[in-house]
């Protein structure tokens, strides 16, 4: 057990340390999330009922976009300095350290969104009881975005115009997560209960945790070949 977790913990710790040393990048992602959310009232008007109605969707779309923007950093630096090739040469299973990298990436970029989201929801006058559901839906949903996005990031590694291409590849795949994530909050607010949506999100998380790292590992091998 500990032997399998050794490389996992090593990569996780290294990536978290790197993220900590480059805090500015993480904060930029977070600032982007906040700014995008704050733009919507300017666009659609500050009528409280309308803002309340669009709040879950706005927060979720903003979370999705800021995840997308940070995705290219997942492997780019390791690819540029050769770390990725060395990792692929190690006898450790690729899937293991890929999951560790995605975990570290989510902790650095996804977790701060969870902490900020309730405060932003209050700007839209969302009922306080729904904040827990919002955070829970983001906690289950954003790791799925990171896992699916990692496959796209690995496929577009080192390509010209990779950022736009990455968006085109993964945004259609993000749609179900967006539907169930924003839907969970809507369902809670409409009184029908968020359980079904959250269960589906949880199922999606487990499914993508099982499958996405395999596709990601294969894509990385192709990219480095």
């Amino acid at each position: 057990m500990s032997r399998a977790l050794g490389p996992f913990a090593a990569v996780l710790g290294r990536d978290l340390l790197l993220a900590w040393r480059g805090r500015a990048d993480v904060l930029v992602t977070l600032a982007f999330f906040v700014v995008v959310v704050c733009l919507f009232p300017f666009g659609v008007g500050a009528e409280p009922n309308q803002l309340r109605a669009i709040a879950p969707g706005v927060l979720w779309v903003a979370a999705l976009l800021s995840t997308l923007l940070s995705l290219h950093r997942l492997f780019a630096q390791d690819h540029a300095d050769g770390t990725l090739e060395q990792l692929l040469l190690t006898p450790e299973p690729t899937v293991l350290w890929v999951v560790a990298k995605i975990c570290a990436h989510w902790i650095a970029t996804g977790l701060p969104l969870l902490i900020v989201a309730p405060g932003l929801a209050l700007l839209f006058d969302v009922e306080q009881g729904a904040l827990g559901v919002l955070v829970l839906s983001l906690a289950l949903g954003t790791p799925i975005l990171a896992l699916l996005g990692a496959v796209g990031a690995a496929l577009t590694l080192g390509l010209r115009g990779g950022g736009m291409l990455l968006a085109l590849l993964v945004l259609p795949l993000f749609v179900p997560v967006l539907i169930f994530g924003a839907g969970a909050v809507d369902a809670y607010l409409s009184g029908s209960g968020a359980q079904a949506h959250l269960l589906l999100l949880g199922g999606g998380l487990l499914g993508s945790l099982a499958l996405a790292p395999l596709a990601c590992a294969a894509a990385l091998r192709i990219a480095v070949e």
Partner: protein
Amino acid sequence: MMKDMQKPERSKSIFRFAAPQMFYPLAGRLAPWFAGVAAILAAVGLWLGFFVAPTDAVQGDVYRVIYIHVAAAWMSMFVYMVMAFWSFVGLVMNTRLSFIMSQALAPTGAMFCFVALWTGSLWGKPTWGAYWVWDARLTSQLLLLFLYLGFMALTRAIEDPRRADKAGAIIALVGAVNVPIIYFSVKWWNTLHQGASVSLNKAPSMATTMLTGMLVMAFAAWAYTIAVTLWRVRSLILERERHTEWVAAELNALEGKI
């Protein structure tokens, strides 16, 4: 089929066509036949649809768009499945022709996807009063178009053909796994949000000529897809194998004809 492969006389096996050099002339011989069949079927189908089939009691003549729309929608979904199948075969067997096949299919699939959306919105305006409603079928068709575009953009963006082949195959398979998830999530999204204002699920009782016309058009779309794909495969093979002797000989022969 697997037994055939182990036989010593390999040249008789159908698998010899997995070599681009062998498939190139076969595709060249088959494509015109499929193109001819497609032209005849399309002519018959359109004649049945626009002149023979009766006018619909409720929708009037607007319904006649289905003769193009339904065939295009079916094909767009089916082509993605075939594309994912060839991608899978390519990844497992490592055959170049399989990857070429899936890349040759993608533009036709995307075209049918677009035609289905376009004709659908032309039908929607007089029938529903709007060019677009966020119905589950329309939305998932739109997302399917995005999946096609992503696949084509990725395979064109990578210069190394080996990497482009495999990367494209992975995204095609990831897309194929996600298509049912996308379809059901969009369906539930729509039903959970609002009662669907327009139901597409009720199958209208259909006159036999209408159904015949639609099926003939569907077969025409099949034949067209096969013909166009074979021609595109030929171009891709020439491009990929341009450094080989047989392609040089082939091109010289072509120039001689012209």
